[in-house]
C-alpha cells in the first residue's frame, strides 16, 4: 500500500476524482512527512494553514466536479517564486523578511488550478550554485546515501530543496527554475524527473530574476507523466512577461503515446568528455540502446561549439545577474545595513550588499560588473553573445538535418559529498553544468530522466534535448526512456 505522500500526481488525481481520498488527507500526509524530515532541510518556510485552506477548497471543487488535473495536489514551491504574504527570499539574507504583496504567475496559475502549497523550498542563493551550499538557510541534504556510508550528499543545485523534497516524498511534486541546469542536475542527483521548458514557455513574472535571457521555470516530479501534467498547468501566455510566448499550450500528457518509431536520436560526440567516468559512459550507451529498441534511429551528430558553452555562460549569466541584482540596494525591500556616523547613500549600498549577499553571489555580481565595464564589454560580453549564437546554430543545424531529440548524460557524476568542493576553485563547481548549460544558451527544452544507479547505489540520469516548443514530443521520448529503464529505486529512509 502506497502512503498518500508517496503518490504521483497522476495517481493522486485519479484517486481524488474517484473519491478514494481527499486533498486534505494528501496534504496532511505530506505535512507529517515534512515534520519528520527536518534533517533534509528541504522546506525552509512552512505554510500548513495555507495548505489546509487550499486543500479544503480543492475538496469542494472536486465534490462539485470542477477539478483540473492539479486540483488538490500538494506541492513544494522553490523559494525563488514570489508567493503573496509568504516569505520569498531566494535563499538570500538580502531579502530577509520580504513578503511579496503579489503572487508569481506560475504559482498563481497552479493555485488557480487547485494546487496546494505546503511551503517554500531551499535552494542556492539567487539560484547561483550547483550544490545548495550557497543558501542562507544552510544546505539541503540529499535523501540518497552511498550504500551504508552516512556521509551527507548534496541534492544538487540550485533547485536542491525541490529535488530532495520530491525524492523523499515530502510533496507530490515541486516547482524549480533552471538557468544553467538548476532543474536537471538536482533531478539527476536525486533520481527524479525535471524538465526545463523552451525559453518563453513559462512566464518569469514574479520569479526572482537571476539571468533573464536564460531563466525558465519547470516542474520537478516523480515521473514523466507528472512532469507533463504539471508543465501544462505552469505554462502559457502572460501579458506581464514580454518574453513569454503567445503559443497555445498543447495537452502534454496526451503526447505520451510511447511510440517513437522512426524518430531520429542524435548522440553528440562532443559530449564524450575526457575522463568521463565509465559508469556515465555506460549509462549513456544503455540509454541509446533503449531508444533504439523502441524503434528510434540513433545518429552520431556534431555540436562543434559545445566546449565553449560553459565559458560563454559564465560571461552572459553573471553579466545579466549583475544588472538584475542591482535592485537590492537596501531601499525598497529586504535588508539594510546599520550605518555609521557620516555614512551616505553609497556606504549604505556598499555595506548593505556586502552584508546581504553571500560569497558566490558577490563573486558573480563582480564578474558581471567587470565584463560589462567600459573597455571589456566587447572583449567579453559581446564575444560571449556571438559564441552563444554559434552554439544555438549548432542545434539548429542538427534539427534541420532531421534530428528529433538529442540524448546526453545529465551530469558528469553522481551526487557528491557536501563540503567536498569547498576548497576547489569556483570553476571546478561550474563544470557540473557542462551537459546542461548549452540548452539554456540555445533556449531549448531539456529533460532529465533517472535511468540507473552507480556502483554505490546513487541515482544517475540522462538528458534529452528537444526542438523548441516541442515539449510534448520531448516528454514522449522521455516517457519511452523511463519505461525502458524501469527506474523504481527510492532512497532508504534514514532521516
Amino acid at each position: 500500500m502506497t502512503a498518500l505522500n508517496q503518490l504521483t500526481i497522476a495517481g493522486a488525481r485519479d484517486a481524488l476524482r474517484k473519491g478514494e481520498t481527499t486533498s486534505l488527507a494528501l496534504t496532511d500526509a505530506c505535512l507529517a512527512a515534512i515534520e519528520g524530515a527536518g534533517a533534509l532541510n528541504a522546506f525552509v518556510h512552512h505554510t500548513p494553514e495555507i495548505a489546509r485552506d487550499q486543500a479544503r477548497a480543492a475538496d469542494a471543487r472536486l465534490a462539485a466536479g470542477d477539478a483540473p488535473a492539479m486540483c488538490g495536489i500538494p506541492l513544494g514551491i522553490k523559494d525563488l517564486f514570489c508567493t503573496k504574504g509568504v516569505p520569498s527570499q531566494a535563499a538570500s539574507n538580502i531579502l530577509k523578511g520580504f513578503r511579496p504583496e503579489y503572487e508569481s504567475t506560475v504559482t498563481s496559475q497552479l493555485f488557480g488550478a487547485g494546487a496546494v502549497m505546503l511551503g517554500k523550498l531551499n535552494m542556492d542563493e539567487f539560484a547561483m550554485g550547483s550544490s545548495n551550499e550557497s543558501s542562507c538557510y544552510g544546505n539541503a541534504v540529499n535523501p540518497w546515501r552511498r550504500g551504508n556510508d552516512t556521509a551527507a550528499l548534496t541534492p544538487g543545485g540550485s533547485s536542491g530543496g525541490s529535488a530532495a523534497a520530491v525524492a523523499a516524498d515530502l510533496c507530490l511534486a515541486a516547482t524549480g527554475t533552471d538557468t544553467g541546469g538548476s532543474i536537471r542536475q538536482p533531478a539527476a542527483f536525486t533520481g527524479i524527473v525535471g524538465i526545463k521548458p523552451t525559453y518563453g514557455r513559462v512566464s518569469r513574472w514574479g520569479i526572482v530574476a537571476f539571468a533573464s535571457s536564460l531563466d525558465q521555470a519547470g516542474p520537478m516530479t516523480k515521473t514523466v507523466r507528472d512532469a507533463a501534467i504539471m508543465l501544462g498547468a505552469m505554462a502559457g501566455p502572460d501579458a506581464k512577461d514580454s518574453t513569454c510566448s503567445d503559443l497555445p499550450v498543447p495537452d502534454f500528457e496526451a503526447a505520451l503515446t510511447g511510440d517513437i518509431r522512426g524518430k531520429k536520436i542524435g548522440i553528440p560526440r562532443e559530449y564524450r568528455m575526457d575522463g568521463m567516468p565509465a559508469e556515465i559512459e555506460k549509462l549513456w550507451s544503455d540509454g541509446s540502446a533503449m531508444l533504439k529498441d523502441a524503434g528510434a534511429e540513433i545518429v552520431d551528430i556534431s555540436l562543434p561549439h559545445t566546449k565553449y558553452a560553459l565559458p560563454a555562460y559564465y560571461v552572459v549569466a553573471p553579466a545579466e545577474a549583475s544588472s538584475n541584482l542591482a535592485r537590492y540596494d537596501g531601499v525598497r525591500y529586504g535588508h539594510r545595513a546599520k550605518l555609521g556616523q557620516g555614512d551616505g547613500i553609497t556606504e549604505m549600498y556598499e555595506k548593505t550588499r556586502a552584508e546581504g549577499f553571500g560569497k558566490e553571489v558577490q563573486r558573480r555580481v563582480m564578474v558581471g560588473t567587470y565584463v560589462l565595464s567600459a573597455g571589456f564589454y566587447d572583449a567579453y560580453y559581446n564575444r560571449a553573445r556571438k559564441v552563444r549564437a554559434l552554439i544555438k546554430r549548432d542545434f539548429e543545424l542538427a534539427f534541420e538535418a532531421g534530428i528529433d531529440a538529442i540524448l546526453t548524460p545529465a551530469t558528469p557524476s553522481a551526487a557528491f559529498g557536501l563540503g567536498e568542493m569547498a576548497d576547489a576553485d569556483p570553476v571546478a563547481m561550474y563544470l557540473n553544468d557542462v551537459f546542461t548549460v548549452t540548452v539554456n544558451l540555445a533556449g531549448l527544452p531539456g529533460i532529465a530522466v533517472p535511468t540507473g544507479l552507480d556502483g554505490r547505489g546513487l541515482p544517475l540520469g540522462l538528458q534529452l534535448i528537444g526542438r523548441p516548443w516541442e515539449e510534448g514530443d520531448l516528454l514522449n521520448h522521455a516517457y519511452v526512456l523511463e519505461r525502458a529503464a524501469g527506474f523504481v529505486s527510492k532512497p532508504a529512509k534514514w532521516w
Partner: protein
Amino acid sequence: MSIDIDTARRVAHLARIAVKEQDLPALAGELSGILAFMEQLNEVDVTGIEPMTSVTPMRLKRRADVVTDGGMPEKVLSNAPDAREGFFAVPKVME
C-alpha cells in the same frame, strides 16, 4: 587577463559591494581564475556573427501605453526598511 588589486577594488566599488582591503588580494585571484577560464572564447572565430539579442526569434511584445496598475502606496512601501510619510527614506544624498 589578470586582475590586480586596484582593479579588484574598482570592480567592487562599481558593483557597490564593500570589500575589506585585506580581502582584495584573494578576490583579485578568484576573479583572475574565472576570467582565465573565459579566455577560451578567444579561440572561436566569430567573424561576421551577430551577437545574440534574443534566444527566440521574436519581437518584443508591445501594449497600449496606458496605466494598468497603481494607487497602492502602502503595498509598495510595505517591505521598505525605512519608509516615512508615503516615501522611501534614505540617508542624505546632497550636502
